[in-house]
């Protein structure tokens, strides 16, 4: 019971200030973020985020698992974009192994990765609007999110914890009717984004609550390690998908929206714009989907098809060996960064030549982004803290790991 005392404790620095504790169960902290505020009346003097309530030791657990067994753990880090995590981990290990991934698997990865981005941004938009007081948007966003989750269920059998991208390719072929479903969704979706924008973009209350609120300059955002929409909102034009392409993003045409002001409104506009860009990429991926295998030609690493296992002795042996002993990975280390919906997600994987990773470290985009909160909020009103937290789009599972 020793750990129940909430720490750290913040002491008021001046006579006229007091300490206000926000969270960890506050609905607008999107999980279990605790924020300590030193306030002078309604003005925030100092702000200190306290994290760690969701720490589950995933990095430690990874060290005790075979390489392929880590994939389901990566889902649970950032539960709003599981496929991006799967992708980043798979890419890192594939780089260690030196595997070639067939084009169809790469295109499917881009397709699902962009659907994940849509899923994540829809949850963000709904809850962010809810925080600020626009209730309706939430219901609309979750209506479309349901369709995206159904797509995840179609390909992987799971709505949230997908584990669909595996080392060396993809678990299974998408089922019949999947691409029609995606095409149908992609045709409907832009009109739905218009709907959200009708409710928010020009809405005078929304603009008053977000314009000029929680500003951060490009220099500050860069120095604090912010990435993704939080950085682009301040006018830094950098997107890993375009600038350091991975898994075949160089074959896709898309724009990277960039803001100017660095306020909540600009970050909102960027994410809404990204919804449109993502659906454009989904369309391109479905149209240009190449034919061919979905797994790399590496029998010692990739599980064989069920059909082959039932007819070929060789396949059965490989399956048995991978499941019971794992596969060994040449010693070395790689860092792989991908653009997650929240910014630069990176996996640093160190191998010592055995079947278990020596060290897996996740660079959580939110952890760095959260550090911008102090710069955004100090000297501003308490009500703006809620808007600022929402606009960073934090996922505590990723921060705490």
């Amino acid at each position, binding site marked *: 019971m020793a*750990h129940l*005392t909430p720490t750290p404790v913040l002491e008021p620095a001046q006579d006229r200030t007091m300490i206000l504790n926000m969270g960890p169960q506050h609905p607008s902290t999107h999980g279990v973020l605790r924020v300590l505020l030193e306030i002078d009346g309604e003005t925030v003097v100092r702000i200190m985020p306290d994290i*760690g309530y969701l720490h589950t030791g995933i990095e430690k657990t990874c060290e005790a698992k075979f390489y392929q067994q880590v994939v389901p753990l990566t889902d649970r880090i950032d539960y709003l974009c599981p496929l991006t995590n799967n992708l980043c981990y798979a890419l890192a290990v594939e780089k260690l192994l030196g595997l070639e991934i067939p084009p169809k698997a790469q295109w499917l990865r881009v397709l699902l990765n962009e659907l994940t981005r849509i899923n994540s941004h829809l949850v963000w938009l709904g809850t962010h609007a809810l925080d600020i007081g626009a209730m309706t948007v939430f219901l609309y966003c979750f209506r479309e999110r349901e369709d995206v989750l159904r797509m995840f269920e179609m390909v992987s059998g799971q709505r949230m914890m997908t584990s669909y991208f595996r080392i060396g390719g993809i678990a299974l072929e998408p089922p019949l009717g999947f691409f029609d479903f995606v095409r149908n969704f992609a045709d409907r979706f832009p009109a739905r984004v218009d709907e959200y924008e009708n409710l928010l973009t020009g809405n005078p209350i929304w603009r008053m609550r977000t314009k000029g609120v929680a500003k951060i300059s490009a220099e500050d955002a*860069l*120095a604090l*390690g912010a990435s993704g929409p939080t950085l682009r909102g301040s006018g830094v034009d950098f997107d890993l998908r375009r*600038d350091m392409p991975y898994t075949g993003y160089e074959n896709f045409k898309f724009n990277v929206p960039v803001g100017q002001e660095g306020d909540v409104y600009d970050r909102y506009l960027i994410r809404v714009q990204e919804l449109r860009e993502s659906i454009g990429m989904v369309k391109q991926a479905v149209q240009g989907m190449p034919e061919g295998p979905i797994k790399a030609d590496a029998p010692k690493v990739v599980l064989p098809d069920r059909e082959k296992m039932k007819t070929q002795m060789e396949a059965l042996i490989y399956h048995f060996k991978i499941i019971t002993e794992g596969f060994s990975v040449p010693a070395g280390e790689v860092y792989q960064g991908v653009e997650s919906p929240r910014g630069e997600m990176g996996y640093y994987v160190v191998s010592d030549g055995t079947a278990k990773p020596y060290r897996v470290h996740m660079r959580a985009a939110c952890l760095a982004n959260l550090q911008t909160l102090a710069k955004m909020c100090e000297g501003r009103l308490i009500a703006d803290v809620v808007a600022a937290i929402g606009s960073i789009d934090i996922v505590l599972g990723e921060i705490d790991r």
Partner: protein
Amino acid sequence: MPPAPPISDLDQLKTHPALAALLAWNAAAVEGAKFDRDEMTIYVERSCIREACALLREHPEFEFNFLSDITCVDWTPSEPRFEVVYHLLSMSKKERVRLKVRLDGASPVLESITSVWSGANFFEREIFDLFGVRFSGHPYLRRILMPEDWEGHPLRKDYPVEGYR
């Protein structure tokens, strides 16, 4: 297809901009380098890490202006035990470089780089929390993920996966 063997010969690698800049500044600061799987690793002498980071950040051509990540690897029982790993990114040239500092297990202390990138704050606190590596000059070196009164540093290799019972 097995990956190409790593290159660790300084003479072959010295054309790399980050390494060239560090060698030109202070050749004693560079303990070694490795080029493996298209990634560049530079081993930096432990007392020079803050200045090396500041130098690379202000690099006239490449400017590694973004601190992607800091983490640590525990190589116990071999010495030096800890490797603190910095990943820098140059947004203009789209280059990454990895800096490494080796620390012995008896007194794992090195200089904080929060004065170069204020974003190093949480990363360094995390390493302090999970590995017990101390950063001198850090503004608020307290546990960040584990409870304040936790005993031990969970990501060390001698800490059992199930925890102490």
